[in-house]
């Protein structure tokens, strides 16, 4: 483990700095992917499958091709290398690389409703849409595989010829059967979670154009500019001939982690050598974009007479949909976190993710670690009920502590603030609310969670950043981070400003360009503050030390007397502006910029079929939430009255941004708890509009009290932990607990719709 990078703070870190991007956004000046246009631009659109599973017969595009204004119609045979490969680390022997392959455009078979079959580019949006209507596709419909458990049966219809099992992970630690035999109390239940959609407000969009020297440039709403490599493979171009730029993104939540419009845009440029734009409709996004994995979670949990956990036996079956994408990794997160933030000496996890003819599932905020929270917290509540112990007290008896080892074999080597979080939440809750009218019931529920931050250690993650002065003493940061709305860029400005003692107003950051900004990895996995933050702090710190001797000379002082502050350097009464320091550096041929690479701690050896115990993630963020709800037992209507949400964020670089992540995560988690689900009938997606797929509005969102605890023990800059994903985990189990408290009946299938709640109350 490398120690977290700690720096003396100039007071900029930790302040509620107004985000520079917020000013532009509120004024309507920010340009998102769909806001760009180029002269002579084509418009591209996709012909998508109308069936969940079918063999493709003849696809006739001749009439579409002949329509005035149509520049090209491309199909699978027109894609130089028609494959998107997902490299899955870990137990790759279970996930043959071939099985992890998806096509850019369907070949012979379509495996989900909405799968792209043909790509049209035309002079206008209307012409492109009209051409789609003229493409005739012959389908030979096949039985749709829609139940992942049934799909594992020996004679089940196959989604892919190699079998329906996409990936599996197992943990077996201790002697689970003996521990159950000795247990005082054992509870058992099955929990079910739904497909849900990211439902960012910005649909998938982008533009692309042919650039100088044969470079194809794609500017798209993405969390991953490193997809330029995937595009190069698809186009059969050298990697240095493809460039991806991420403008400010209108929400990602994992849904813009896999490629969306990028390959289609790049293919049109390759074919036509013209600029092109593609914007998915909301319906396309809801119908065909990757979803969150539904899971069936079978839990058996035993404890001793004091409520201390002895054993957990956990079975997970996840619906991976039609193609692999990131399923194997999502399942790894679920497997690792399945025991919850509780010490347990005997744990067995058998986790499987299965191909079906549903929309492919992949990354979404929480990434497998949040589905299991419904189950592990439900089990704690059941045990508390059986033992007659307060649910929070039962949790306190079992909280993980620093130095404990998870069943997966990872030892927790930073502070685990769970007891403090529980205390803060309990204190923040106050008195129980009264029902607002006769017949209503109120309930209170608490839930805790753990969520990794940073990519799994086998990926040997790294981030690079460039920090340098201009001649006038202003500062520039160049870094490949896509900013998806969480304040990724502005936090880095804050960090650079703090380390070098320069007002953030005098810092400009250039982000998200695979050709011009140093690569820093994906804005996913709650890793950007951790990784890019460390990279910027490292680069800025090294730049400061590089200039320090020169500053000492300039100020006629000792090097250790020099302070970087207020936009210049100071030693006692003597002071020089950065512009003077840079001028001196130019004269002395000392560089006034720095490119640095931060490397995350590596992992234990994992390439073994028999044992992969060990470190999986850099570290975890812990949380504890509580909700008060009011229920109308007649109608099943649930109102969340308030929510207290505490997380140890290590160090709040910008407290306002941290609160924003917590509040937004809570409301997204409440949508998961109470309303959101993608509905399929025989694999056909029936929730293709925002009128059918309901996300919380301001009315459903409760008053939220975020509690930010700063242990200073994270691996990020200044001891920060990641906070992007963690807050989405606890709301659903907290609501489940509150409903059980209100109704005396436990719901285990999400979402807790009025129908289900009324039925449980009856």
């Amino acid at each position, binding site marked *: 483990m490398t120690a977290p990078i700690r720096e003396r703070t100039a007071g900029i870190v930790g302040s509620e700095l107004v985000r520079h991007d*917020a000013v532009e*956004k*509120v*004024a309507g000046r920010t340009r998102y992917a769909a806001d760009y246009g180029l002269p002579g631009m084509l418009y591209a659109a996709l012909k998508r499958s109308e069936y969940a599973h079918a063999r493709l017969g003849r696809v006739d595009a001749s009439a579409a091709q002949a329509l005035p204004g149509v520049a090209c119609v491309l199909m699978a045979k027109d894609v130089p290398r028609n494959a998107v490969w997902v490299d899955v680390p870990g137990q790759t022997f279970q996930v043959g690389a071939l099985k992890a392959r998806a096509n850019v455009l369907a070949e012979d078979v379509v495996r989900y409703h909405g799968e792209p079959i043909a790509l049209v580019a035309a002079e206008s949006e209307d012409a492109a849409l009209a051409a789609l209507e003229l493409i005739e596709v012959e389908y030979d419909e096949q039985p749709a595989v829609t139940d992942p458990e049934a799909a594992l049966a020996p004679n089940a219809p196959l989604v892919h010829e190699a079998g329906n099992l996409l990936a599996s992970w197992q943990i077996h630690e201790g002697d689970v059967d003996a521990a159950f035999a000795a247990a005082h109390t054992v509870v058992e239940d099955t929990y079910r979670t739904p497909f849900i959609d990211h439902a960012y*407000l910005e649909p998938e969009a982008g533009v692309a154009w042919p650039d100088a020297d044969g470079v194809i440039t794609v500017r798209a709403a993405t969390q991953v500019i490193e997809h330029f490599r995937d595009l190069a493979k698809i186009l059969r171009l050298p990697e240095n001939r493809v460039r991806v730029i991420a403008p400010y993104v209108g929400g990602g*939540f994992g849904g813009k982690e896999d490629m969306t419009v990028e390959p289609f845009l790049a293919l049109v440029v390759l074919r036509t050598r013209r600029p092109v734009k593609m914007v998915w409709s909301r319906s396309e996004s809801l119908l065909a974009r990757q979803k969150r994995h539904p899971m069936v979670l079978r839990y058996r949990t035993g404890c001793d007479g004091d409520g201390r956990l002895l054993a957990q036996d956990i079975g997970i079956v996840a619906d991976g949909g039609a193609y692999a994408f990131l399923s194997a990794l999502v399942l790894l997160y679920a497997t690792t976190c399945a025991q919850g933030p509780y010490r347990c000496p005997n744990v067995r996890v058998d986790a499987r993710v299965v191909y079906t003819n549903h929309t492919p599932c992949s990354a979404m905020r929480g990434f497998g670690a949040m589905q299991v929270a419904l189950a592990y917290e439900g089990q704690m509540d059941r045990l508390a009920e059986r033992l007659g112990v307060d649910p929070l007290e039962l949790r306190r008896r079992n909280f993980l502590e620093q130095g404990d080892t998870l069943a997966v074999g990872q030892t927790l080597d930073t502070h685990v603030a769970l007891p403090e979080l529980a205390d803060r939440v309990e204190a923040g809750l106050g008195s129980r609310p009264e029902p607002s009218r006769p017949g209503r019931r109120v309930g209170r529920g608490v839930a805790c969670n753990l969520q990794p931050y940073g990519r799994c250690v086998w990926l040997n993650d790294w981030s690079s950043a460039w920090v340098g002065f201009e001649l006038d003493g202003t500062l520039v940061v160049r870094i490949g981070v896509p900013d998806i709305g969480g304040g990724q860029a502005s936090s880095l400005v804050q960090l650079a400003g703090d380390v070098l003692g320069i007002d953030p107003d005098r810092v400009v950051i250039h982000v998200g360009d695979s050709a011009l900004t140093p690569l820093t990895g994906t804005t996913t996995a709650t890793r950007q503050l951790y990784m890019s933050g460390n990279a910027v702090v490292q680069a800025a710190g090294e730049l400061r030390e590089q200039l320090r001797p020169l500053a000492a000379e300039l100020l006629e002082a000792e090097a250790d007397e020099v302070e970087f502050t207020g936009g210049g350097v100071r030693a006692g009464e003597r002071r020089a502006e950065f512009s003077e320091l840079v001028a001196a550096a130019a004269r002395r041929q000392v560089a006034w910029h720095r490119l640095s690479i931060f490397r995350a701690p590596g992992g234990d050896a994992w390439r073994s079929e028999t044992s992969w115990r060990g470190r999986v993630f850099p570290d975890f963020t812990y949380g504890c939430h509580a909700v008060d709800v009011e229920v109308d037992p007649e109608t099943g209507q649930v109102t969340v009255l308030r929510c207290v949400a505490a997380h140890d964020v290590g160090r709040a670089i910008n407290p306002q941004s941290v609160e924003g992540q917590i509040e937004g995560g809570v409301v997204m988690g409440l949508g998961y708890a109470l309303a959101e689900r993608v509905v399929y009938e025989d694999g056909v997606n029936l929730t293709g509009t925002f009128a059918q797929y309901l996300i919380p509005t*301001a009315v459903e969102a409760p008053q*939220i009290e975020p509690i930010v605890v700063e242990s200073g023990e994270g691996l990020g800059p200044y001891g920060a932990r990641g906070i992007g994903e963690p807050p989405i985990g606890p709301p659903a189990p907290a609501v489940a607990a509150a409903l059980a408290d209100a109704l005396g009946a436990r719901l285990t299938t999400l979402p807790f719709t009025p129908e289900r709640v009324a039925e449980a109350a009856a």
Partner: protein
Amino acid sequence: MEGGGLKTCQLELLVNGRRLRTSVEPHVTLLRFLRDEAGATDVKYGCGEGVCGACTVLLDGRTVNSCTVLAVQAGGASVETVTALSRNGELHPLQRALVERGAVQCGFCTPGMVLAALEAVRLGLAGNASELRRSLAGNLCRCTGYGKIIDAVEVYRDEEAAA
């Protein structure tokens, strides 16, 4: 839907105070006209069916979802987008409150949200937080959880009342 096959209509309207005289096909929505023909890319496409509110604009001073209005229906009208609010680069006090309260994350809902909130305050439909929440129910946000937006609008409302 075939391109070029439809009769175009004459259209004259004000967009953020600028007079536009042009022709437009009758099926083109106000949203599409504003973004593609009038350069008003601050108006956002979020759902195209009047649910999410990202395309909210002021049509003769009242908010509409511009995706559910045809461009030709705005003939003779004055259309204002969020751009019209900041004058000489100075943010409107409501915009300032939103920025200062951390109510902007990805920002995609923000232009529509600003106009909806402004109208709610102007029409006296923001008397308290729960009334304000109802007034903003037609503007979806997936990032913030709404709390900081509500706080910011209340700050603005109280400042206005005190002024």
